[in-house]
């Protein structure tokens, strides 16, 4: 059935997702103060949170100083993926390939054929939806050493479905031999950039850019490709998470402390290959509920990957829940509104988890 036109503000009927999530505006109620969508890339940082600018761009510059074979390639989104930092430092190693993602991926494959290590950037929607075949047949099937680093993963823009890559992980998980990385914050992004540069093989990395929150330096944590790390321990629930949802899980865990709910957080920034050993080890400990939190659709992402791992190993947790985006084309709007609406803000996550305990 064709999607119906929107009603004017205030008369808007709640969507199924809004009804399911708390915080939705109900018709007939006085208008709440409405946030604006803001720029294409709103910062994920909450007010007062520590951030670092362009962690990917700066880390790549450091990597490239000792690696002359590293080149940068983009499809008219250098500035919006922080690759321009690399371009500024190494102008002759920076390839502006134009707004042509299919050709971008093929040309990166060609560069890798000649021994170079291209770091390729665009938005996650364009890499996953538009350029899939070219990544599959031009890069990954031949095992070429290309790093595809994509901004706007999941719900990190309010521009609506054209820019919200809510299914990129589901799409890419089906591709054999492709490593998938979903870092949490600035520290994770820097370390992951170094790690994927050192790894010989094709990688898809979900990129946080701009002023990226800095969280994990407060924990005993370092990024290791293919490893999940227990960032926080807890007795009642085990959260397995990737991307910025680890940051949200850590915030939610603090909120839940007030309700005497003790939450462990296992950060799994490598989604493929999944660190099944660490996940099974933690899931077997002490009959906790397992909650998988991801900035991605409930379909085909980390949640289903973890569920499959548990089922295949015959591990049955006390309960299994997902904090993830609904299987839907999401709304346009301001990120804080949308994160709350779809249940991936820290507060919404804490509310959900409390209701599940």
């Amino acid at each position: 059935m064709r999607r119906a036109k929107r009603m004017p503000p205030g008369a808007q009927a709640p969507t199924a997702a809004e009804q399911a999530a708390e915080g939705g505006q109900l018709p007939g109620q006085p208008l709440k103060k409405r946030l604006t969508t803001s720029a294409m890339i709103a910062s994920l940082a909450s007010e007062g949170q520590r951030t670092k600018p362009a962690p990917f761009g700066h880390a790549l510059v450091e990597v490239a100083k000792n690696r002359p074979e590293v080149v940068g390639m983009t499809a008219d989104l250098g500035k919006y993926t922080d690759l321009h930092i690399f371009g500024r430092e190494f102008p002759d190693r920076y390839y502006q390939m134009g707004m042509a993602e299919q050709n971008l991926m093929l040309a990166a494959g060609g560069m890798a054929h000649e021994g170079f290590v291209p770091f390729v950037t665009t938005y996650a929607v364009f890499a996953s939806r538009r350029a899939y075949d070219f990544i599959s047949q031009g890069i990954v099937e031949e095992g070429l050493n290309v790093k595809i680093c994509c901004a706007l993963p999941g719900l990190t823009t309010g521009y609506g479905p054209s820019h919200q890559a809510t299914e990129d992980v589901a799409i890419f998980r089906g591709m054999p031999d492709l490593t998938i990385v979903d870092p949490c914050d600035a520290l994770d992004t820097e370390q992951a950039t170094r790690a994927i540069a050192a790894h010989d093989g094709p990688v898809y990395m979900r990129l946080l850019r701009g002023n990226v929150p800095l969280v994990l330096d407060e924990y005993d944590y370092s990024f290791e490709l293919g490893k999940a790390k227990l960032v926080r321990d807890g007795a009642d629930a085990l959260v397995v998470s990737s991307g910025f949802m680890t940051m949200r899980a850590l915030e939610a865990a603090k909120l839940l402390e007030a309700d005497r709910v003790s939450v462990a957080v296992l950060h799994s920034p490598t989604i493929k290959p999944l660190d099944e050993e660490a996940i099974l080890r933690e899931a077997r400990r002490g009959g906790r509920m397992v909650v998988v939190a991801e900035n991605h659709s409930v379909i085909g992402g980390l949640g289903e990957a973890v569920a499959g791992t548990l089922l295949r190993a015959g591990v049955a947790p006390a309960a299994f829940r997902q904090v993830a985006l609904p299987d839907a084309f999401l709304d346009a709007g301001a990120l804080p509104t949308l994160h709350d609406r779809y249940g991936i803000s820290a507060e919404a996550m804490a509310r959900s988890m409390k209701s599940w305990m």
Partner: protein
Amino acid sequence: MGERTTTLANAPSLEERAYRIRRNALRMGEVQGQGYIAQALGVADVLAAAYFHALRYRPEDPEWEGRDRFLLSIGHYAIALYAVLIEAGIVPADELETYGTDDSRLPMSGMAAYTPGMEISGGSLGIGLGIAVGMCLGLKRKGSDRFVYNLMSDGELDEGPTWEAAMSAGHWKLGNLICLVDVNRMQADGPSTGVLNSEPLPEKWEAFGWHAQRVDGNDVGALVRAFDAARALEEPKPRVIICDTKMAKGVPFLETREKSHFMRVEQHEWAQALEALEAGRKA
């Protein structure tokens, strides 16, 4: 270890090379009983001129850094490329009979990891030219003066990424790129003009910043002149040689066969085809 750059005086003529390429292709076709025979016969002269006039390579070292790269974008033309790789001594002749059989190094659609001398996994049509663009950029970075040849079909001109790559090559002024378009005017569903008309071709490529030539792709002499002109051009532009070819060229009773994209040849016809080919052989 000789770098083979020109046709030696005592070497077989290009016409003889083309004949042998066609013969190899027919023998491989017979293993399957059907396949992309007509394309292989049609493009044989282009491959003969490429591998025995234009390309620099070492048969004993197919990955030699100093080679010109030859990309087979049209994966299903693998039978044609195997035929020339065998003639060039890159693939052993005794593997010919394994074509398209289990565990063979010569699969029906070309794959880089399977076959010596196969640079890329083509077959998802429209991917070769973009890879060639990246290789050309890479070779320039390395200061190499080698060429990248991309062999594609007129059917691949239907694909959007072909034109993304064409525009990109023009933008980057890739003078080390030579694209060969095999225009046999036959696609999977029928004649190209009915499937999706891509003419006028030279004008399209020129508008994308290319140096374009159009030749009779079954005239070895014309092909040699076109390759020479493409290589000698000093203007920093990518070069395309549009080769008008005839499906199943060299075997008259197959040339007129209508269903030529994936041609069925009856068991008793293979010997006749080889005889017909032999009859047209120029000693």
